[in-house]
């Protein structure tokens, strides 16, 4: 049985189509990533899978339960860590956990055992009796994950779990998520707009843009589709002549706004030749970067746009400022 089966799922808000007819399946025990820029429809998809939003059309099953017909079945089998904070800051970590355990009707003895065990797992045992409002961003995130696991869900949704966290904490969380998946066999569905996060964690990735899945495969396969090596040339010109030449080692040339990228099979061997050609065709070169394909290149390839980290950066910043103001 699949952990998640989605077919032709659609969500409209008025005229705006947030999720546009998507279908995919997630196997049990998989770490599956939804990768895309802010506003691509990742959170909306997760909200529908978690029964928080009604789909406009299509259907979805989680652990064999239909998200529309059997809400409670779905809710019992999933854990979710929301993008925005969802802890009660006026309660302690222990009380937040206890509240969750009672809502899921976990018997007292089991509940108390698991709370001790999970707080230990996320390294918050010593701070158990402190109010959450005294916690740092990373500690809150860890507490939310621990809370999401309290009722032993089969599927764990993590919506931008490392948003706004420092690199060290992000690394720690990644290791932790991998361990959960490996040791407890939990299916993890993660949304992110961080390429490295998706690359590092996910077994398969769905690249989402404007409500659609534009590509779905393992990170390795996705990158392989882009080519062996990528040379990105920042230049106001575009080497049309070069593109029309049929050179065997050039796999593809793609033009973007202010730069173009050349995918080729063996950059070490052909770089000087490539440079010679660019000079020969009088292409003005502002700068050149050479790298192995990343998911960034994959995203660029499928959508024609970069995921625009700057834009995401401002949004994150605003979100963090908003959070900070509310504390």
């Amino acid at each position, binding site marked *: 049985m699949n952990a998640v089966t989605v077919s032709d799922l659609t969500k409209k808000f008025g005229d705006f189509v947030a999720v546009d007819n998507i279908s995919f399946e997630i196997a049990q025990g998989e770490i599956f990533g939804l990768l895309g820029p802010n506003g691509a429809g990742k959170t909306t998809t997760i909200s529908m899978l*978690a*029964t*928080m*939003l009604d789909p406009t059309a299509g259907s979805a099953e989680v652990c064999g339960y239909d998200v529309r017909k059997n*809400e*409670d079945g779905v*809710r*019992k089998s999933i854990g*979710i860590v*929301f993008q*925005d*904070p*969802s*802890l*009660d*800051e*006026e*309660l302690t970590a222990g*009380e937040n956990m206890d*509240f*969750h355990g*009672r*809502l*899921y*009707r976990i018997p007292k003895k089991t509940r108390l055992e698991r709370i001790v065990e999970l707080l230990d797992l996320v390294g918050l045992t010593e701070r158990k009796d402190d109010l959450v409002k005294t916690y740092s961003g990373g500690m809150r995130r860890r507490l939310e994950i621990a*809370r999401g696991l309290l009722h032993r869900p089969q599927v764990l949704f993590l919506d931008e779990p490392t948003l706004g966290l420092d690199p060290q904490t992000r690394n720690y969380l990644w290791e932790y998520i991998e361990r959960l998946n490996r040791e407890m066999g939990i299916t993890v569905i993660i949304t992110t707009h961080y390429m490295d996060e998706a690359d590092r964690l996910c077994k398969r990735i769905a690249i989402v843009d404007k409500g659609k899945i534009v590509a779905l495969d393992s990170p390795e396969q996705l990158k392989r589709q882009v080519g062996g090596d990528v040379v990105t040339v920042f230049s106001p010109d575009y080497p049309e002549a070069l593109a029309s030449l049929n050179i065997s080692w050039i796999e593809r040339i793609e033009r973007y706004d202010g730069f173009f990228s050349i995918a080729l099979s063996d950059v070490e061997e052909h770089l000087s030749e490539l440079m010679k050609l660019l000079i020969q065709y009088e292409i003005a070169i502002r700068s050149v970067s050479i790298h192995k394909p990343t998911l960034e290149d994959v995203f660029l390839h499928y959508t024609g746009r970069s995921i625009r980290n700057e834009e995401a950066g401002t949004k994150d910043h605003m979100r963090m400022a908003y959070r900070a103001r*509310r504390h």
Partner: protein
Amino acid sequence: MDVIYTIWLRNVKRYLRSKSRIVGSLGMPLFFLIILGFGLNSVVNISNISGNYVEFLVPGIVAMSVLFTSIFAGIQIIWDKQFGFLKETLVAPISRTEIMLGQTFGGATTAIIQGTIILVLSLFIGISIPGPGHLLIAFGFMTLIGIAFTSFGIAIASRIDDMNGFQLIMSFFVFPIFGLSGAMFPIQSLPLLFRDLTLIDPLTYGVEGIRFGLTGVSQINPVICFIVLSAFSVVMIGIGASLFRKIQI
């Protein structure tokens, strides 16, 4: 029941921890009681209802304290929306009616505590209560006011998303409900139009019920008060629960 208790417990814990809120919300009722009570005590003569004006005012101020605290407790839902905590409860495998009831009873409990504090404080200014049976009646009415208006707050909070609407609620609901409740003036002395408005205001029946409990005299028969206020509570729970069920986040 477990779930209702859990949500009740959270509300009460939060309330007991916010000392500044407890003290802060005593300010206005005490202000009314002292300034208005002692200020008007010598000029107002209502010997047909009560010994003096301060004594007349106490039940109204207790009701006011319960009213403010309970509406405020219902409106807490807006904070839970903004701070994201509401999602945590809405995504749990429990019914929304249970969440709403837990919130209602939690809010009512804090409102009763707040009303009791005012009641105890007013003992110091010379109020004498007829007896334990009457006191129980007063608490019964405080409970009903608490339940009805926490539900009312939840109903409002279900429809608005941020605190910008808060001032609007205070001006157009809370103050008129209090002002027209007969808490500050004898109903008989009002012009006809205001008398009718007062009789429409559900809080009037709460104030008169508490008045009967605390002083043994009331302007409206306490049985009628009980029936009207109970019916109002049931209706408010119904409206609150149905609006709460429709929250989309």
